């Protein structure tokens, strides 16, 4: 046999062509084209000794372990079987052309001369995927488990969404253990939806959006997950987690209500057992910026500065108190207060209270005392006391034009300090009164 170099096209001729071919000759030419191609052969010239059944001289073409024909004679001869313009195609990339001659070429005692043949072959792309469509009907192993893509000189396989092509380039395996969705909205569904989902799934679909946004989930019809009338989701189940917190486990045919997860991180875990014929689920998720609850004061003395109609993630508000009040968080007095809206829609600090300023117990006055002119014992903002000296032994020191009642009047100020209008914090002094005996000497006897 003659193996000709692998080319995309070429010619094959009989020996000595176009001169008459020799007797007693047999050779097989092996035509190969690259893998992914098939061989197409056409005879451009054919002139062989004709015989009944091409018994003497002939050209035999075979491919794919099949004989495609045995040819002899020439176009128009009554005997023989010339190929004419017929195109011969192999299924694979190899075609065999066997040329056989007998010991003579005579016709009625006259030696005849036949030129032989000239054949042209070319590589033709093999559509490996052609059989894919009919593979089920013809019960043959398809080239690809899922999708087949032909190209000149070859083909490749791919898998449907949710599946992953295996190393063998043919098989597809479920791929749903780490599905990540980061768009602001989108659809998530079980594999094959709305066709029945595959068995033995351990799927994890993660939706991650920007902090400060909440993910809303809305399930579509049909919703169908294998269930049991008495036992809660024993076979297959869809679990939903929001920021790691389980917010539901679903199965059955009742579509879950729309969910506001109040989270920017949602995980859907879908487990299936080894059987079932439910159609699965599909949801549409959307995102919305999270809003914090409108801040509300706990008492009438608290002031929220520049109150906004609504607050969202990263917004903040500042709280102050009315005059004479101070911010208190628990037992702690605060100099200022700011609360920031967090990404979970909560405020990072609870609203403080405004507690009335307490000036504390008034300082005691040496050789004097004080009375409350407001509620007795109450030392809070706007409370008033009146200092007085122990008369007649002491007298309050006053400035010119100022009375003792003015000098002795102290008010609890907004700063939490007892203050006199004229003298400020300084408390009055009680000075000794001289020369005023209570029981001066008296002489009756004259």
């Amino acid at each position: 046999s003659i193996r000709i170099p692998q080319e995309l096209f070429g010619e094959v001729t009989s020996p000595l062509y176009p001169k008459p071919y020799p007797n007693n000759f047999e050779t097989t030419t092996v035509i190969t084209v690259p893998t992914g191609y098939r061989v197409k052969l056409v005879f451009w010239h054919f002139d062989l000794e004709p015989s009944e059944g091409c018994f003497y001289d002939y050209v035999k073409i075979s491919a794919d372990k099949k004989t495609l024909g045995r040819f002899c004679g020439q176009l128009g001869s009554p005997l023989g079987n010339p190929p004419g313009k017929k195109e011969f195609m192999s299924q694979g990339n190899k075609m065999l052309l066997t040329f056989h001659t007998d010991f003579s070429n005579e016709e009625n005692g006259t030696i005849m001369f036949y030129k032989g043949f000239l054949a042209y072959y070319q590589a033709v792309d093999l559509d490996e995927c052609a059989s894919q469509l009919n593979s089920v009907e013809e019960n043959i192993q398809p080239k690809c488990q899922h999708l087949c893509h032909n190209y000149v000189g070859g083909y490749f396989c791919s898998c449907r969404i949710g599946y992953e092509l295996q190393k063998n380039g043919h098989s597809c395996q479920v791929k749903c253990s780490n599905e990540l969705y980061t768009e602001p909205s989108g659809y998530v569904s079980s594999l094959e939806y709305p066709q029945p989902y595959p068995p033995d799934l351990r799927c994890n679909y993660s939706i991650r959006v920007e902090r400060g946004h909440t993910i809303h989930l809305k399930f579509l019809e049909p919703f169908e997950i294998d269930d049991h009338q008495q036992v809660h989701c024993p076979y297959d189940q869809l679990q939903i987690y929001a920021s790691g917190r389980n917010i539901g486990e679903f199965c059955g045919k009742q579509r879950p209500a729309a969910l506001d997860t109040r989270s920017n991180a949602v995980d859907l875990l879908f487990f299936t057992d080894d059987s079932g014929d439910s159609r699965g689920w599909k949801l549409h998720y959307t995102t919305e910026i999270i809003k914090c609850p409108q801040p509300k004061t706990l008492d009438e003395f608290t002031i929220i500065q520049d109150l906004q109609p609504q607050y969202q993630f990263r917004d903040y508000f500042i709280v102050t108190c009315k005059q004479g009040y101070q911010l208190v968080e628990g037992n702690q007095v605060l100099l200022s207060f700011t609360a920031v809206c967090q990404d979970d829609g909560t405020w990072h600090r609870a609203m403080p209270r405004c507690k009335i300023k307490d000036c504390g117990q008034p300082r005691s006055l040496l050789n004097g005392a004080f009375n409350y002119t407001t509620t007795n014992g109450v030392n809070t903002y706007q409370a008033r006391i009146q200092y007085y000296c122990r008369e007649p032994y002491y007298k309050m020191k006053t400035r010119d034009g100022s009375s003792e009642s003015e000098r002795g009047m102290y008010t609890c100020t907004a700063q939490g300090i007892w203050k006199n209008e004229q003298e400020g914090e300084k408390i009055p002094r009680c000075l000794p009164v001289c020369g005023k005996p209570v029981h001066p000497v008296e002489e009756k006897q004259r």
Partner: protein
Amino acid sequence: IIGGQQAKMGNFPWQAFTSIHGRGGGALLGDRWILTAAHTLKPKEHNTQTNVSNDVFLGHVSVEEIMKLGNHPVRQVHIHPDYRQGESHNFEGDIALLELENSVTLGPNLLPICLPDNDTFYDSGLMGYVSGFGIMEERIANDLRFVRLPVAKREECERWLRKKNRKDVFSQSMFCAGDPTLKQDACQGDSGGVFAVRDRNNDRWVATGIVSWGIGCSRGYGFYTKLLNYVDWIKKEMEEE
């Protein structure tokens, strides 16, 4: 006090009882100062530098009771710079202040006396009271006694001193009170106490003099440190503290 009578509680609430070089008197100024005579602290003809206690008692008319009330510790002694301990006939500047460690609480039996602000308090004939725990005739007093004396005419006192051939200095910073015809006077142990005059205009009692010296007791006039001349010094000393 010679020829006087026993004081009742609250009659002379400024009266201090001192026990320094023997019995003496004083008067409360403000609530932590005792006005007294310098010679109760540095007696004439008594140059020994022995440490003596400056015991001061206040608030009662009985010696026994006043001592029971407790001593008021003295923080500092201020003697007038004009005082000359070594000049036995010269009681010039016989004034001193005792600054108490602690203020006292005033009450009906413990009140300060006022200081004079004009010369009318020294008009002759003006009656004043002298009180003290000093001797009476030949007996020591157990209780506070007082006597009412008139301010004497300065010339009378000078004449009286000349008649007695005394070299004692009777300066402008002194005044005299009493009447040689009356057996009424202050005496030993009353020194430092004050000559108190009732100021009717202001309804207050004013210390115009400090019991300072005399020739014997109740045999003529008594001589007093004229406080009006020392008011500035007193205020200065008190304000400095």
